[in-house]
């Protein structure tokens, strides 16, 4: 735990979510209360079906809870309509998925540029930012490559660049190293740690991998705690 408590960037209060499977209603999250301070690196861990991904989806604004309050940077996102939520995500959340989720028909450059198309930035400005982001993840020389020309680790780094490009409030990662070999996983995690330590980005990660959790100022959250 840090000595000085940073302000909470995510405040969850009495959050509940259930899924309907045919006739059955399966409760996944029941009455969760949690705060995540700004600049934290938090790993959500737990067995399959424990609701960690569900919690991540709710925080990221791609799903809505049945009950409870969810404040991100002071804003209750449960009150936002779908269109506003989309706008909110565009500026507040950076996504990293297990299978990279890059558009196969777009180059690395174009993939990273995608979120910027939702802003009012001009072409030249977008180009500058994309080049900076790709340089940051060490792939400046692979800008014009298509995802099928890149290795798994490289694709994930492109995805990280895409997650960063709008300077979001939160970086949300769902099993970012799940599909990578040991070495690439290390590279990706290293990147995430640097983003957190050097750029002060709040990183919320769902993972199986105990090794993924960096030592030091991180926290883990397990279902039931």
């Amino acid at each position, binding site marked *: 735990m840090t000595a000085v408590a940073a302000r909470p960037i995510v405040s969850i209060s009495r959050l509940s979510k259930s899924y309907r499977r045919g006739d059955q209603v399966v409760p996944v999250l029941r009455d969760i209360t949690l705060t995540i301070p700004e600049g934290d690196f938090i790993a959500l861990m737990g067995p399959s079906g424990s609701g960690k991904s569900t919690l991540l989806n709710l925080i990221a604004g791609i799903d809505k809870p049945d009950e409870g309050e969810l404040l991100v940077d002071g804003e209750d996102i449960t009150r936002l309509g779908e269109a506003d939520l*989309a706008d909110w995500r565009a500026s507040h959340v950076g996504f990293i998925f297990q299978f990279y989720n890059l558009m196969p028909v777009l180059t690395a450059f*174009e993939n990273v540029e995608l979120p910027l198309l939702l802003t009012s930035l001009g072409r030249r400005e977008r180009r500058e930012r994309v080049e900076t982001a790709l340089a940051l993840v060490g792939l400046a020389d692979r800008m014009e490559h298509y995802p099928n020309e890149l290795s798994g680790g490289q694709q994930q780094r492109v995805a990280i660049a895409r997650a960063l490009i709008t300077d979001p409030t939160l970086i949300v990662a769902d099993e970012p190293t799940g599909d990578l070999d040991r070495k690439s996983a290390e590279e990706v995690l290293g990147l995430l740690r640097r983003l957190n330590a050097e750029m002060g980005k709040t990183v919320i990660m769902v993972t199986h991998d105990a090794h993924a959790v960096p030592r030091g100022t991180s926290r883990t959250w397990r279902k039931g705690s």
Partner: protein
Amino acid sequence: MNARQILVKIPFSYIFRNLWTRKVTTLLTAGGMALVVFVFAAVLMLDAGLKHTLVSTGSYDNAILLRQSSQTEIQSSVYRDQASLIETLPGIARDAEGNPQVSKEVLVLTQIPKRGSDKPQNVVVRGLPPIGVKLRPQVKLTDGRMFRVGSSEIVTGRSIAEGFEGVGIGQRLRFAGREWTVVGHFDGGKSGFDSEIWGDVEQMMQAFRRSTYSSVIVKLQDRDEFANLQQHINDDQRLILDVKREPAFYEEQSSSLSTFISVLGITLSVIFSIGAMIGAMITMYAAVANRTGEIGTLRALGFRRSSILAAFLAESVLLALVGGAAGLILASFLQAFTITTMNWQSFSQLAFGFYLTPAIVVKTMLFSVFMGLVGGFLPSVQAARLEIVDSLRAA
């Protein structure tokens, strides 16, 4: 912020390259649409060609007089005394010597076998005086010479020369109990005259044992004299005639055939388009299914449902436009062909071609867009309605 969001922010390269990746599917789907568009464009071009041929047959400065309520020259008869009266009417142009620019003509049908077939077809034979040739400035002699007055010589239009047997220069045709020598061919400027045989009016009348003319063509002194002329004819009891401007008359001639072509053609195009649209629908449903993960990702990144809808609709429309352009280009080659068929109203063969106009290009492309929109609509709606979490899970 909101107005901007409503526009499609998904880049064109995403839309285009997805079509390019699935080449076989894109080719087959666009190919089907190309064929539908081909049929559609061909029908429009044929109808335009028919109208073009008939309308260019007439000159706005000329008026044609026929027996009252005759629809065609073939059915009409104008007595010699009526014809003489017409020459005295006001509003008719006169040449330097004061001669009235009036052509008294007779129209008959004869049968000649088409080239490559032994089945004889009805062909129009027009007996006219030299002034009649003058009144049709669009007609130009291409080989040989014009027929001589008082002789059994004839000249044939381009379509007759090309499509029928035994009409070369120097050859003889037998009809109305006489042999007629072909002395020349003329080009009617893609008008109905291309499908006619011309000869001396008095000779024709003798041979066909006719005592009356079929029609009288007059050149107006001034374009606006028409109303005046019409008034005089209506007032004169002896002249039980209809007068029409030449272009209007010829346009009426084709109305039945034109309507038939249009109705048949458009009906066929609509039915065929159902097949093409189903093809597009299948393709787009598959595209949505294959890219469910991508859709979820785009939504997660902040793209709205409307952008997703628009992107897939744009893909469908682009597909249709590619097919449409291909079909149109293919159809444009039809302009090299001529069709000769019977014009029901005049009961004779008429040759006309395919005529591509800018209006047809526009209509065809709009039709393509329509097919793309209708075919792609339901799949695009399905894409837009996907829930983010479900799409990501399915990826």
